[in-house]
């Protein structure tokens, strides 16, 4: 029991890395899938729009990458990648907390960005010349994933410097 308690800092840190990767990844998978369905619909009618609709499909994929980045940073800071380190319970819990912004904002921003991307794909299907404007709208949703990523990264570096 005492051994488990001593090592639970590492457990919480790993849980944080897992939740960041998992939730942001789920959001991206849902988002890319949803946008892909709409993209396939447009391609069935007009294959020449492949390049344009592919960009829309990839927009919700970034949250998964952000989750992966945060997960990787946590793993390397707690010594699960590279040199082993002693992590206290408090540090482990702080790493866990640092993963939460990208985990939740990543999941929901990817889902909602995909809705916006589907609408953008519809716009491009109808008016291919409006690609520039149509892509800005789902890209706006990305802002909130980036803000969450920023906080998660700042928190991880802050904990490492403690």
């Amino acid at each position, binding site marked *: 029991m005492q051994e488990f308690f001593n090592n639970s800092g590492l457990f919480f840190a790993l849980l944080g890395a897992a939740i960041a990767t998992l939730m942001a990844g789920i959001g991206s998978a849902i988002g890319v899938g*949803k946008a892909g*369905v*709409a*993209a*396939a*619909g*447009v391609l*069935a*009618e*007009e294959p020449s729009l492949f390049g344009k609709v592919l960009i829309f499909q990839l927009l919700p994929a970034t949250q998964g990458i952000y989750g992966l980045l945060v997960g990787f940073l946590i793993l390397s800071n707690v010594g699960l990648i590279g040199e082993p380190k002693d992590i206290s319970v408090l540090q482990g819990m702080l790493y866990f907390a640092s993963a939460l912004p990208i985990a939740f904002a990543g999941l929901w921003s990817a889902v909602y960005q995909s*809705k916006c991307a*589907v*609408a953008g*794909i*519809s*716009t491009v*299907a*109808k008016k291919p010349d409006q690609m520039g404007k149509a892509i800005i709208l789902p890209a706006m949703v990305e802002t909130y994933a980036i803000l969450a990523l920023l906080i998660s990264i700042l928190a991880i570096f802050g904990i490492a410097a403690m």
Partner: protein
Amino acid sequence: MQQEYTYAVARIRYRENKLLNDADLNTLLSAKNADAVIRQLRDKGWGDNTGTDDPDSLLRREREKVWEFIDEIVPDKSVFDFLLIPNDFHNLKVAIKSITRDMKPDDMLLHNATIDPMTIYDAVSKREYDSLPDFLAETAKQAMSVLLQTSDGQLCDIIIDKACMEYVEKLGKASSEEIIRLYCELFVASADIKIAIRSAHTKKRLDFIQRSLAACETLDVDRLASAASLSYEDVLKYLETTRYSSAIPAIRVSMSAFEKWCDDTITEAMKPQKWEPFTIGPVVAYLIARENEIKAVRMILSAKINGLSDDVIKERLRMMYV
């Protein structure tokens, strides 16, 4: 969880570009003759490669193409029952009348329905009503026995039409899609209004009118029937108190002007579907828009064939979805 139609809507969005708009209709109207209209339509992808220049075949093929496309993009066609069920009731009418008159029904049957028309024909001819779906079985039995007992074709029509309206109304109420609810309500209300107007003109008795009208949410059918039993002006006076007051100027012009008002009202109501990316609404709107388009082209072709002036047709052309 509500089903999403993302794939179907994406394909519809592309196809919306190919719908005829008001300018296209004006171009068709300005064509020299029906052949020139057909040539222009072929350039826009209408018809198929058979090269037939028969207007009826062209329009029939176009309608078939619409439903082939819908079959491709929507796996469960039952969401469109509200559009197809009236064709089943039409086929029932044709089956009953052709059986009692010993005629062949082939040309009059509509194949775009929820049940194979020959299934209805066989069931009615063998009096095996149980082999029909519930929504048709009782109506078929009742209409057939009325026609055999009274030889009153009008009464038979009333029974079938009313059953059709009641079923469409039920489908509308059961739908979670606003555009379907609106379409079904307007389908029943406009049929009721047309019956009331015709009954007022032909001075039908109150019990006949009451038997013909189907209940709907936006009309008080008892008041409408009473008004129709009095006079045409009383019908309009009653309509002034309903949400159909804006249809009165069209009703005063003619029944076809009123039909145009109904089609335009639906077209106007479905315009927001152009921005809806996930629901069945845009698919329904596309189907109705295509139907209106085919109706408009049929009018233009008949005008060209019969030498009617462009102005007469322009007045009757429906508002286009795009």
